[in-house]
């Protein structure tokens, strides 16, 4: 009811702040205030490995979430807002939340989070979401099969269990290139010491593709967790690990016991600007194909759509459409847009590979 009366005050104040939202003025006093989004201040950046760090965030208002869910995180890098999703690693109910990011080579956002973020910085969050969570009733033992930063949502679940009913029977099969790069290794060991029901098995895969003995197979599952078929299972990590897990569980009677969390990587545009791809206009449910030279406005019109537009030469911005997925290339200067949610000037942009637009 506190928030409801706050909203009412905001509604009255919006007459005074019109045409801007009241947020524009309240943020002068409280930078974390927002009625439209979620702003959070960085409280601390705690190194986990040489290339991973936990970021402690204080959102402007408490975040309701379940262990295992992820949030959208928007950070400004060289003046441009970039948005990625990260699993929450803290226990629900706290005034602060944490995410743990691992810097990937050439990863603009992950490197910024791990190496450049400083206490006091403001980040922009989107509400927690995701179904990679614990069941309401834990009626079976648990198994987590993780790789790399895929341990992060699982860490959130284990911490939550440890803070609540305890970890009665859980096995973690975690995969990392080396002991140095295994995130949360010491905390997992400490948890296992306090909770006899928790067993953690690390598999080190080395750099590059894992050797055959480190691949996830039915035989290895049988060896490391003989009752794996009877457990609630979660898997999160690189695509090959998830594929191996799916194939292992497909041989069981209850493949639905396996839950999978996929971090979809951003696509890169083909190097050759002439290469287009399949084009999907999601709001119109229209599919077509386009080369890399034809403006997407023309592609849409050829597909029978009537997109709003003005100058057809990139100056009036009447035709902008949000990117759902894939890449587009600006025909004037060759710049590529590939972040979901980016606004695309379709009169001067062409497909660069497959693309989905909200049109």
């Amino acid at each position, binding site marked *: 009811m506190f928030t409801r009366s706050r909203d009412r005050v905001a509604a009255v104040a919006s007459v005074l702040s019109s045409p801007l939202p009241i947020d524009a003025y309240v943020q002068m006093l409280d930078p974390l205030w927002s009625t439209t989004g979620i702003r959070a201040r960085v409280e601390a950046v705690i190194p986990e490995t040489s290339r991973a760090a936990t970021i402690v965030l204080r959102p402007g208002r408490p975040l309701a979430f379940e262990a295992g869910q992820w949030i959208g995180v928007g950070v400004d890098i060289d003046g441009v*807002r970039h948005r990625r999703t990260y699993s929450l690693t803290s226990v629900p109910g706290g005034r602060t939340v944490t995410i743990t990011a691992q810097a990937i080579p050439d990863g603009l956002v992950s490197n910024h989070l791990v190496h450049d973020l400083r206490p006091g910085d403001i980040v922009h969050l989107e509400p927690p979401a995701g179904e990679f969570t614990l069941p309401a009733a834990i009626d079976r033992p648990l198994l987590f099969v993780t790789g790399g930063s895929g341990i992060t949502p699982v860490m959130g679940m284990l911490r939550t269990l440890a803070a609540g009913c305890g970890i009665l029977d859980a096995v973690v099969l975690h995969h990392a290139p080396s002991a140095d790069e295994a995130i949360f290794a010491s905390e997992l060991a400490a948890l296992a010491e306090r909770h006899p029901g928790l067993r953690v098995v690390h598999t080190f895969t080395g750099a590059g593709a894992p050797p055959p003995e480190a691949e996830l197979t039915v035989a290895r599952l049988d060896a490391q967790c003989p009752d794996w078929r009877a457990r609630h299972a979660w898997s999160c990590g690189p695509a090959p690990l998830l594929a191996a897990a799916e194939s292992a569980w497909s041989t069981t009677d209850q493949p639905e016991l396996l839950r999978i969390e996929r971090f979809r990587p951003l696509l890169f545009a083909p190097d050759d600007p002439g290469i287009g791809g399949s084009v999907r206009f999601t709001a119109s449910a229209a599919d077509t194909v386009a080369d890399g030279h034809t403006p997407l406005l023309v592609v849409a019109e050829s597909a029978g759509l009537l997109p709003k537009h003005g100058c057809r030469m990139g100056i009036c911005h009447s035709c902008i459409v949000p990117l759902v997925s894939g890449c587009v290339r600006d025909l004037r200067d060759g710049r590529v847009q590939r972040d979901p949610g980016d606004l695309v000037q379709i009169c001067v942009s062409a497909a660069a590979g497959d693309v989905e637009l909200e049109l």
Partner: protein
Amino acid sequence: MTATFPPKTISPFSDATPPVDDLVVIPHPHPSGLTPEQLDSFGLEMDALREELLQARGESDANYIRRVIHLQRRLEVAGRAALFAGVLPPFWLAGTTMLALAKILENMEIGHNVMHAQWDWMRDPDIHSSTWEWDNTCPADQWKHSHNEMHHMWTNVLGRDRDVGYSVLRMSDDQPWTKATRFQPAYAALLALLFDLGVAFHDLEIEHVVDGTKSKEQAQAQLKAIGAKIGRQSLKDYVVFPALAGPFFFPVLTGNLAANVARNLWSFTIIFCGHFPDGVAQFTDADVENETRGGWYARQVLGSANIAGGKLLDLLSGNLSYQIEHHAFPDLPSNRYAEVAPRVRELCERHGLPYNTGSLPKQFGSVVRRIVRLARKPAEPASG
């Protein structure tokens, strides 16, 4: 159909032109007098400048617009606070000045440029062309149509760019003279005083409703949006803020009114200096037929004029003191115009294009003289 980009011609006319197999087409010379090859060279160099600016923009630009927004909001809050004590003349004057400056900054350097999508690259939803609504009676979406589309694409093309005289003033010898034109200095003064309302009703295109080329339903929907925006703006400035001051209702009301009028006079002055000083060219439909990208750039230069002044003028004019650069690169961040202006000027000189600039008194003086001169009945009936 497939299309390539950049197309050889960018004018939508190229789609609408009827087949011409059996006609002898005499190429219309570009109003600049430049050959197609010279125009292409000019266009390529301007595109290269644009590309350079696109590459350069980054954190310092983002910090600039956020600093201006922060300054504008502090000025507005301080101005409104001072006006609550506006029964004391120094407070009234200080409050009104700060509020007028805040409104000028909001309309010119922030609103106008944000709605041009100059800051969309930051991907900050709070500073974005698709979400910005400005402190002005004109609804943002209608402004984006009449200004970004009609004015910026058809700059100074008579009959297409409706900013030429705002359908009220005769700004060109080629526009018809009527008896009512005699009084246009008075209309101009009135337009300046009520400039925000003039702009608000601009996109209605009343004359097109009258001649039947625009539907009444469309105009009614627009009118409703304009009315709602005027209502919200008036409620804030002329009812709620004065009422909050209780017994000091009238000083707040007059302060807000004076700030809005000051904003109107200033924006009228700057905007009329952009396209109507002596030496600025006006164009006809024939000039823009099959216009190339280089031709479009050259027309923007010929049809615009800068105002030479200092950094304060740049800020308060929303960098429309660099109207030429703004028209060449309408969606590049305004804080970069000052830096690129000497290079645009050099390019113009090298290509033999006039680069119109002058002090504010010089440019505005010539605009006033034009309004007065064109109010008089032409000596001979205008041809055509």
